[in-house]
């Protein structure tokens, strides 16, 4: 499974949305991505990628695309 697949799966599992919807997601763009949903997503991503994010990165993680940028800081790349 590629990093992109793993990343996408985390959103699908956390928010119960289809994989083809996740690219457009942002914080509070759907009711499932509220503050509690956000923390579940963060925990899940940390577990899947075996990383531990700083508080600033967690509060900056405001969308699917921004999240990819942030994970890059932890060595998680999304190259094709």
């Amino acid at each position, binding site marked *: 499974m590629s990093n992109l697949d793993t990343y996408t799966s985390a959103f699908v599992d956390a928010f119960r949305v289809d994989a083809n919807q996740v690219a457009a997601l942002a*914080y*509070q763009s759907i009711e499932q991505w509220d*503050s*509690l949903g*956000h*923390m*579940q997503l*963060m*925990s899940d991503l940390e577990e899947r990628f075996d990383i531990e994010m700083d*508080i600033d990165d*967690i*509060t*900056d*993680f*405001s969308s699917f695309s921004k999240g990819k940028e942030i994970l890059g800081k932890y060595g998680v790349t999304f190259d094709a």
Partner: protein
Amino acid sequence: MHNEPGGSSFDIKGILKAQCNRSPMLFIDRVCECVPGQSARSEKNFTYNEWFFPTHYEDDPNVPGFVLVESLTQSFLMAFLSLPEHFGSRTSFLNIKDATFRRRVVPGDRLVIDSQIASFKRGIARGTSIGRVDGELAVSAEVTIGLPKILEQYKPKT
């Protein structure tokens, strides 16, 4: 140490200090062993005086499933609300998984609950609680509980 933040056991007075649940929604009587941040063993004695028995059911009184899940959860809460920094904090349910009911619990039963934290960080505690009566498995569940005052600090900037 007894009933104090960081304590290793709690009676009803200590439980009332450590968590916000109150009668008729308080479903543990005693925490007999506690390792703050790791585990708790709690007890709940069910007598026919409980408010739900006369209606659940009149001819066959037994503890409703939601009460058993709440008992499991309140024991789990004590495993981290016993930490000095979270003592007395408000909590909220985030998830319940695999709630399994194996044995009816009836008036006169003592439910002994073993709660174990699998992970606890950034205000989210995940783990399991298992309730037994006379050593026999009665109910179990995986629970995830949040501490809103901590979660608030991690909200994305909008």
